[in-house]
């Protein structure tokens, strides 16, 4: 596109796609067949990856970007946006994903980090990025690096919502506190959050993150989706929770309906019926690796 009157890859356009995904469910899929099930069920986007987090956790070893051929197969299978994951700091993987034409890159702690100090310089890309965060400081650092969507990390692949709740409450609780701070206190907040002052000032003024905030990590039921939406998430990512459950298609659809009707318990009780077993869950104390600890 050489038309100089058209500007691509701007913050507005990148954050704009995140706006369009609000109120929706982004589902992890490992092949075109799963991608079609997800789209049929009303997913607002799919995340293309080779193994869902529960399998990555079980298999161990180094988890990397997916095979481009597999990502292209999923792109061709659906009409909704396709996201894919790059390792933290692995800008070469992100460059490949951008050249494949994926709609969003997830610089994800679910994959094995490639850089122990630096995240990707996301300003250098046309494709938008989503990054995980466990607290407000981490969220603002990712935004300062150019992330256009934040997802609370939770603990992927566990089917256990407790970490997602901890991270959401931490981010939203600190946002509330920052809005109560006076001008002088904001300098101290920036120092404590290890985040750029202008972003802290923006949060204080608007009462929200500068980019949309979604929730990920441990969502396995319609009630989980409702819980995190009521806590303030603007959309949900479901990783292992759908395709590691007994009967993925109806569960996927139920989670989509629950995300739309998150504040309507009668509707939630209707969509939660007869879904079969959710994915097997894991106690956090039993984990060898905490994925959420990855990222700096």
């Amino acid at each position, binding site marked *: 596109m050489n038309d100089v009157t058209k500007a691509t890859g701007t913050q507005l356009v990148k954050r*704009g796609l995140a*706006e369009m995904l609000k109120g929706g469910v982004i589902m992890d899929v490992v092949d075109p067949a799963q991608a079609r099930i997800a789209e049929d069920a009303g997913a*607002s986007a799919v995340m293309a990856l080779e193994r869902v987090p529960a399998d990555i956790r079980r298999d161990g070893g180094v988890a990397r970007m997916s095979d481009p051929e597999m990502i292209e197969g999923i792109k061709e299978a659906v009409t*909704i946006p396709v996201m894919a994951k790059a390792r933290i700091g692995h800008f070469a993987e992100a460059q490949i994903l951008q050249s494949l034409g994926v709609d969003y890159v997830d610089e994800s702690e679910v994959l094995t980090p490639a850089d122990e100090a630096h995240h990707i310089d996301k300003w250098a890309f046309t494709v*938008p990025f989503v990054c995980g965060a466990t607290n407000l400081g981490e969220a603002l650092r990712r935004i300062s690096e150019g992330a256009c969507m934040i997802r609370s990390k939770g603990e992927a692949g566990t089917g256990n919502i407790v970490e997602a709740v901890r991270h959401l409450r931490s981010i939203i609780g600190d946002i509330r506190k920052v809005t109560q701070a006076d001008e002088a206190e904001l300098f101290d907040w920036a120092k404590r959050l290890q985040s750029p002052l202008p972003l802290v000032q923006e949060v204080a003024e608007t009462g929200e993150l500068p980019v949309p905030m979604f929730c990920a990590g441990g969502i396995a039921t319609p009630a989980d989706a409702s819980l995190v939406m009521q806590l303030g998430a603007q959309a949900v990512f479901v990783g292992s929770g759908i395709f590691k459950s007994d009967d993925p298609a109806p569960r996927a659809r139920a989670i989509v309906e629950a995300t739309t009707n998150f504040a309507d318990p009668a*509707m939630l009780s209707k969509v939660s019926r007869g879904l079969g077993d959710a994915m097997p869950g894991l106690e956090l104390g039993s984990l060898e690796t905490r994925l959420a600890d990855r990222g700096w």
Partner: protein
Amino acid sequence: MKVGVLALQGAFARHAQVLVALGAAPVEVRCPVDLADVDAMVLPGGESTTMSMLLDSSGLRQPVADRLAKGMPTFGTCAGMILLATRLADGRYDQRSFGAIDLDVRRNGYGRQIDSFEKDLVVAGLDETFHGVFIRAPVVDRVGDDVEVLATVDEAPVLCLQGTVMVSSFHPEMSGDTRIHARFLDLAFDH
């Protein structure tokens, strides 16, 4: 004026903010009872496949179609334009539209997200250009005789009006400029 904003999925909150700024009263619409006393409606951007599924599961499809048939003023942006069009190309085999404005549209007609763009638009009836934000936007392939084209990009219509139905392939709720929503509210008031 009560303006229903279809709140099944997508950028409905942004539309509600613009409507409040213009003095209208937005009502989030998720089920048929929410439609009862709205005077006009906005179908926001988001994923049209998701909204289409939820229009069926919520029981909203028929009541919305009935209100459209009775001439309820309606504004559809991006996915909302897709839902209001007559025919849809490159959609899903099972996707249905309301056929409230005589247009054929093609989903993601401008390409993928990396092709999403911003551009200043000349809009009929506005003195100054309007900043258009196009996100995985649909392209209009055919325009019916009764449709008035209010703005174009590369000769393709991006803002259209037929009777009480207005549609845009871009996102006026994203540019911090209320003029297009104001125009829709004028249309609804006159109705």
